[in-house]
């Protein structure tokens, strides 16, 4: 395990980026923080700036207007930074992939390390995905 893997082993700080999601994925992310699931037990917490983050969690189907903002956020993130595409929208575009304003999915614009499908993924699935991600880093 290199220095990167060691750094990623504990206390992942997550920046959550909503790229045109329907809100539900985002709510389930917040749900993970609240008492029933409480991922802060493991040191995983949401941070307010991408410059502090180890993981960039992107939900939503990526409409056109959000693309430059999303790429800029990714460029601002200190590397290494793992990217997780959350929800069916983030993974493939889901039900919105035929829309005229669809410019995604996420991995078309930034490199993605893990995909968590589901619409919305349950908090258990989100936590499971993050744990698997830690295993691969």
């Amino acid at each position, binding site marked *: 395990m290199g220095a990167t893997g060691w750094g990623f082993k504990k206390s992942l700080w997550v920046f959550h*980026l*909503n*790229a*045109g*999601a*329907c*809100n*539900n*994925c*985002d*709510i*389930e992310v*917040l*749900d993970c923080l*609240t*008492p*029933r699931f409480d991922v802060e037990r493991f040191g995983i917490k*949401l*941070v*307010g*700036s*991408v410059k502090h983050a180890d993981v960039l969690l992107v939900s*939503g*189907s990526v*409409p*056109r*207007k*959000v693309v*430059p*903002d999303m790429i800029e*956020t990714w460029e601002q993130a200190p590397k290494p930074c793992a990217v997780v595409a959350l929800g069916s929208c983030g993974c493939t575009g*889901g*039900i*919105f992939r*035929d*829309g*005229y*304003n*669809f410019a995604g999915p996420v991995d078309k614009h930034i490199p993605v390390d893990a995909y968590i499908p589901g*619409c*919305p993924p*349950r908090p258990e699935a989100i936590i499971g995905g993050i744990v698997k991600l830690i295993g691969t880093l």
Partner: protein
Amino acid sequence: MSTTIPIGPFHPVLEEPEYITLEVDGETVLGADIDLGRNHRGMELLAEEKTYDQDIFLVERICGICSASHSWAASLAVEDIVGCEVPARARYLRTIVHELERLHSHMLWVGLAGHIIGYWTVFMWGWKYREPILDALEMITGNRQHYAWYRPGGVRRDVPDEIWPKILKILDEFDTKVDLLTGAILDDPVILGRLKGVGILTTEDAVAYGALGPTARGSGVDIDVRRDEPYGAYSEVDWNVIVQDGCDCLAVAVVRLLEMKEAVKIIKQCIEKLPGGPIDAGIRDVPRGEGIGHIEAPRGETFHFIRSNGTNMPERHKMRAPTFNNIPTFRPRVKGETISDALLCFAVIDPCYSCTERMTVLDPSGKMLLSPKDLLRLSHEKTEQIRRNS
């Protein structure tokens, strides 16, 4: 001299991508502007390319919090075209799920408001008490959110009778928690200090801006679709419309807290009176025609209009969510407040951009907004094109 403060588009307090600019002089906010469009997914056109049954899955993904509201409004619009009568059992079941949704949505708002004013306890409590409601929804519909439960003509699956005692128990517990939370919020001098007299939206302004739902009812405007134009089972149960005339953020918070009590009352009566019988009117064909469906979502009136040309897909599907009307009320609310209160004034309408964004503007002048990188790409593409053509 005034300064402009940009907020967003990805800001920790804002759940969704939006870009707010505040014009300030020292600490005082002079004005505000909002740049939307980052969440525009082309819903209306997508809806016109899907069948009526598929549309329900689409419209509930307009917004994760109001998925029951949108799918019910769309179903009502189709039923309006067909002119069919929805079976009583389906009407009651629909009402139960809709009110459960109101409970979890209002609780979510209470939590987020706590988060914004720096009361993490309120946030954690609110979201903890919200979980059992999601469990109840999962028991009834099969999913925590995005229920896929409404369909034109009725509901998609029937519910066994054994689950009602469990749901009643969840509701009883929830009710005591709402009392506890209401007491804790209204007794806390600091919370009162942050909410009372902050973000005034006068009754005249609320009417002029066309505010809806709790935003309007907190400013003394007595409107509620559930009472004014009853649908579902609302005319058959006993409940009250909550109106407060404080016009400030506190009044809106009180409206939401008290509405939760009313919602519990409605659900309990519906469970008690739940009739038997079929759950679906069995709509086969949708004739040519136009129909509307409007219902009181947690944030206000949700409106759906469908025009049918006799095929199995709508020719036009127009949707309007309450936040569309409520967002402009941010301006009168925030004027003259301090910067620290600006976000609260904004959050008090419980904004939901995914609901609102029926259009996107890439640049106000109508031109595409291009970054230096886009220009470079366009230039490269042109070279490529010339090379290919020559």
